[in-house]
């Protein structure tokens, strides 16, 4: 289509052009037209090619695997329909994994977003050595997650860990980070927060700096205090950024793997699967005891659907929160 259309229209211009130069102009013109029509698509094409190979194909293929018996080494078996999904949903461990994932996700994402915005507000103020502080918050992000996990699992060791030693110093009973459900989730969430808060802070900070300063000047003239400015100007103006942060941290939070897997040496999520997340469950199904890629793929798809669902809920919620804040600002 795109190639024939200009060709058909081309015969029209030549009569207008002086004779000898006509053929060259036609070629250029043709190129120019193709250029206008095609080059935007060529520009975006690499992304879609990569996406098709690295994103779309795996998703579709996973769906295909999930409706078959599929052994890790043995490979493809019979078509079983939705049996894998039924099997997975009936396993109590799926519910445990779901519970753990949500618990760790909430314990990490909520404080993380709040802390990131608060920190960004502080960094947005007139500080000495701004760049130093700004670089500082990003420092944990540079550390590889596995290294973070190694350090934190030393700190959170039940008997010989630093945290329990500090707690003992103030007279608190040692917490059993590796056997209590909630304690293990808190420990893992703290690793996630350590790593990601700074990253989100910088994103929030960038957005904050784009807020027109006149708004603050006007607010100061109106007699608004620092807090009032923060909640009535900064937060509403940050709305799209907050939505971005919430959605990316949702995706990251629900896919969490490295930190809980490295939390002990076995990497199974504890003897009672206290901190086994959905992705770890997926891994255990595929590569662990059951060696069933079919079931693992079913979990992958369930996880995908859950993320989409939570993403939508998040989007609706953050929109409402942010827009009600916006109204407050308009008043």
């Amino acid at each position, binding site marked *: 289509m795109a190639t024939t259309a200009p060709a058909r229209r081309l015969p029209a211009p030549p009569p207008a052009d002086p004779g000898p130069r006509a053929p060259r102009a036609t070629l*250029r013109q043709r*190129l120019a037209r193709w250029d206008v029509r095609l080059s935007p698509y060529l520009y975006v094409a690499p992304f879609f090619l990569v996406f098709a190979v690295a994103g779309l194909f795996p998703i579709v293929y996973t769906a295909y695997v999930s409706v078959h018996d599929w052994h890790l080494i043995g490979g493809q078996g019979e078509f079983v329909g939705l049996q894998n999904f039924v099997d997975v949903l009936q396993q109590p461990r799926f519910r445990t994994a779901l519970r753990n994932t949500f618990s760790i996700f909430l314990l990490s994402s909520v404080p993380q977003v709040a802390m990131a915005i608060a920190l960004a507000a502080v960094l947005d103020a007139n500080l000495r050595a701004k760049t130093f502080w700004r670089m500082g918050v990003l420092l944990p992000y540079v550390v590889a997650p596995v290294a973070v996990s190694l350090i934190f699992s030393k700190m959170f060791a039940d008997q010989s860990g630093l945290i329990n030693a500090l707690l003992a110093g103030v007279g608190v009973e040692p917490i059993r980070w590796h056997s209590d459900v909630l304690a293990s989730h808190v420990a893992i969430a703290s690793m996630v927060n350590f790593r990601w808060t700074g990253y989100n802070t910088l994103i929030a900070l960038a957005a904050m700096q784009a807020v027109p300063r006149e708004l603050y000047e006007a607010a100061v003239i109106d007699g608004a205090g620092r807090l009032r400015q923060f909640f009535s100007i900064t937060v509403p103006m940050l709305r799209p950024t907050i939505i971005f942060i919430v959605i990316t941290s949702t995706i990251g939070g629900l896919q969490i793997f490295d930190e809980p897997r490295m939390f002990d040496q076995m990497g199974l999520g504890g003897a009672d699967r206290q901190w086994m997340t959905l992705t770890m469950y997926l891994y255990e199904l595929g590569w662990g005891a059951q060696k069933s890629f079919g079931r693992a793929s079913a979990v992958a798809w369930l996880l995908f659907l859950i993320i989409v669902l939570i993403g939508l809920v998040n989007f609706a919620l953050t929109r409402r929160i942010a827009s009600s804040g916006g109204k407050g600002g308009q008043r």
Partner: protein
Amino acid sequence: MRTRRSVPVVAGAAGIALLAAACGTSGADTGGEAAASGDGEGGDVTLTVATFNEFGYEELIEEYMDANPGVTVEHKKAATSNEARDNMNTRLAAGSGLADIEAIEVDWLPELMQYSDKFVDLADPAVEGRWLDWKVEQATTPDGALIGYGTDIGPVSVCYRSDLFAAAGLPTDRAEVAALLEGDWDTYFEVGRQFAASSDVPWFDSAQATYQGMINQVANAYEESDGTPIPLAENAEVKDLYDQVVAAGVDDGLSAHLEQWSEDWVNAFQNDGFATMLCPGWMLGVIEGNAAGVEGWDIADVYPGGGGNWGGSFLTVPAQGEHPEEAKALAQWLTAPEQQLKAFEAKGTFPSQVEALESEELRGQTNEFFNDAPVGEILANRAEAVEVTPFKGPNYFAIHQTVSDAITRADVGSDDAASSWEKALAAFDELGLG
């Protein structure tokens, strides 16, 4: 204007060309590699050997290359066996990408046995009688094919802290300790109770690890010899061991309630965490590393219930390789008694070859850290005492995990013995083996 506009077309096209080139290059690379290993110059052969942790093969490989000028050997070492295992399973499924010789742990055998056609049958008159019988048996398929050449084994003995023994009024000399512990697991736990009566230090490190030692002596732990899984609820033998180890470890407080390899376990070596532990040959290095600077570790020539084997590896030749014959020859050479003794000297991997076990060189080995104990002789004796080869079918590890988890739950105190066992039964049902 026009010429400038046409630049983007070129740029876009170049982008795609680059992408295509990127894919193309990687393809060409693998092709090139394959070609190089096929016939580099004049029929030379390149063999890859993939191992994990420490096999002690570095110098041996040099030696082999010197002796066989036509052969180049590349050694790929994975840091952990888990890493090597994931790599193995994935590439086995993919049908390409494995090394010519792949080292495997004894634990992976039951799974790999199901796909024995993916490995070269290594049975050969030249290696008959080379290994301990049970070592060969482990790697032999039901229809008689040998899929792996034995490297090291893990004969288990009891390591103990003589200083803590002395403080509790128990004998400290390793011969006397061996006499004291001679017997079955009841004896081991009974001596533990004596010890606990006059010491605050726990008797052993971990209930799960102790159970591991016990289950290694059961011929048909979780499956019948034809591979049929024994329903866990009806498995009286396992339930009995479970009750025994939980009663000793938790009720009598003999366990230090540590999970092996955990941070606390590693640190416990430094602060008198426990008085004894079951130690396979490869554990000696681990203890020495963790307990650096601690005096008093010793090793007794005894093991509850006779002998036991914990771990050990094999070399396999995956059928997908291009040079199965050459690879087989190299694997045969690497696992020959002389070479295995050198590997033992280099990294302490205890040989599984009859001749190596009988050699003076091995028997004469002592270990300074363990109070100059004659570890070579002790471990060789322990290897000879092994009578039972546990049958490990394809579901062995899945079921074992459910019981191990149950013991850990009871041991670290996140659950009581009865409810933890119920959870094990539920986890067993989840496996869907019924």
